[in-house]
């Protein structure tokens, strides 16, 4: 009983804090707090703690990554050399990263910073930008396969996409001068209307989900059995 009720109670209390500070004003906690947003101050402090907790959670990931990859290497599972590459890259970057994080203010160990920066410029940035650039290829193959007139909805989807894509082609625009305005209208009216409909609906859905969590009905995130 104790193991289940306490987390749900904590969730409820932690949840009411931002709600109360958002809706009500509390007594001035300290003299230099004339506007009396005592609760807001408590809520903001609590948020700073949550940011620290989220940062501390990174260690959970690091530990799991070492567990999984070391096990893969020790019993020579399929693809173990890549696990070795992963751990080496993590250890080297992590080592210089920590050294840089602790020495940057006092810039004593400039070489730690230089080594770390070299890894970021040579490895992290190009890999990240190239993964991102794959989208230009995937957009093409997805459009080729998906924009087919299977039914009315697919036809509308295709028409809207073609309208935008033809709207930027100089030859077509010279032939159909009204096209850029039609493109603008499509983006500003039907597109914006549909997005607003989704946003309002999703906001209500999210608020409902959040409420279910606060009053303890939705608990799968805690891995609690319904009856526990």
């Amino acid at each position, binding site marked *: 009983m104790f193991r289940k009720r306490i987390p749900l109670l904590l*969730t409820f209390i932690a949840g009411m804090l931002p709600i109360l500070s958002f809706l009500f004003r509390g007594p001035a906690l300290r003299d230099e707090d004339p506007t009396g947003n005592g609760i807001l101050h408590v809520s903001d402090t609590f948020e700073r703690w949550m940011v620290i907790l989220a940062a501390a959670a990174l260690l959970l990931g690091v530990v799991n990554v070492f567990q999984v990859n070391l096990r893969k290497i020790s019993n020579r599972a399929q693809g173990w050399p890549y696990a070795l590459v992963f751990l080496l890259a993590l250890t080297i970057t992590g080592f210089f990263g920590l050294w840089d994080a602790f020495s940057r203010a006092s810039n004593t160990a400039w070489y730690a910073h230089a080594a770390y920066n070299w*890894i970021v410029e040579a490895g992290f940035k190009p890999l990240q930008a190239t993964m991102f650039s794959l989208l230009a290829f995937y957009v093409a193959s997805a459009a080729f396969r998906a924009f087919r007139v299977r039914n009315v909805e697919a036809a509308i989807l295709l028409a809207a996409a073609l309208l935008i894509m033809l709207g930027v082609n100089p030859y077509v625009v010279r032939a159909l001068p009204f096209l850029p305005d039609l493109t603008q209208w499509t983006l500003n009216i039907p597109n914006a209307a549909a997005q607003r409909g989704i946003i309002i609906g999703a*906001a209500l859905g999210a608020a409902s989900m959040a409420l279910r969590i606060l009053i303890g009905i939705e608990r799968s995130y805690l891995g609690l059995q319904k009856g526990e």
Partner: protein
Amino acid sequence: MASELWVWVGALFTLCILSFLYKDNPFFRFAESAFGGISMGYYINLTFRNTFVPNLIAPLFHAGPAYSAATYPTREPEHWLLIAPFLLALVLYSRYVPKIAWMSRFALAVYVGYYAGLNMMQKLQGEVLPQSADTIRSFWRFLPERLPIWLDAQTRTVSWGEWISSLVFVIGVLAVLVYFFFSAEHKGVVGGVGRLGIWFLMISFGAAFGYTIMGRVSILIGRVIFLVDDWLGLG
């Protein structure tokens, strides 16, 4: 041809990732693993540099690079209170002690609870209300006394096109809202309005997809310039 080593390493990593387009191969797999390790190290640095060192170690322990007597002359109460997140983090790590592993749920419960409450307010106040109120103003904003001041006097009338566009806009918002109704089968009136809702959705998805192509291609251009100019120097 580039002389610096880091350009060569960056270019080879770029080619390894691009090779995945052809098929999965050892070069991509190597780049994937290296990328995973490097990125993990990058965020370890970022987490310590942006969060732990300035916001926890300095104020709570009065130590570390970000601490100096000038910035932390006295022991403020909220510095002491930082014990709380520190303990909460230890509770999170209790997962590794089998006997008290269940305690790690407390840390998750607090974190989820706080942001569930915050999200609820942000969704109601930040999305439901302003978006609905703006939809209500769709025609109200065309009333003569409402038109923005920078429109000079003689153009303060509104064309029929703008009235119709606003009507189409309102119909679209309401149709999409009805389409997502859970309590009614899509038959009869609800079915009809729902069908109109799907058409608005399809226009939106097609237009949004078509429009982002330009942005994605620009990122690819950035990579091509790096290879062609910085690495091969053919520019």
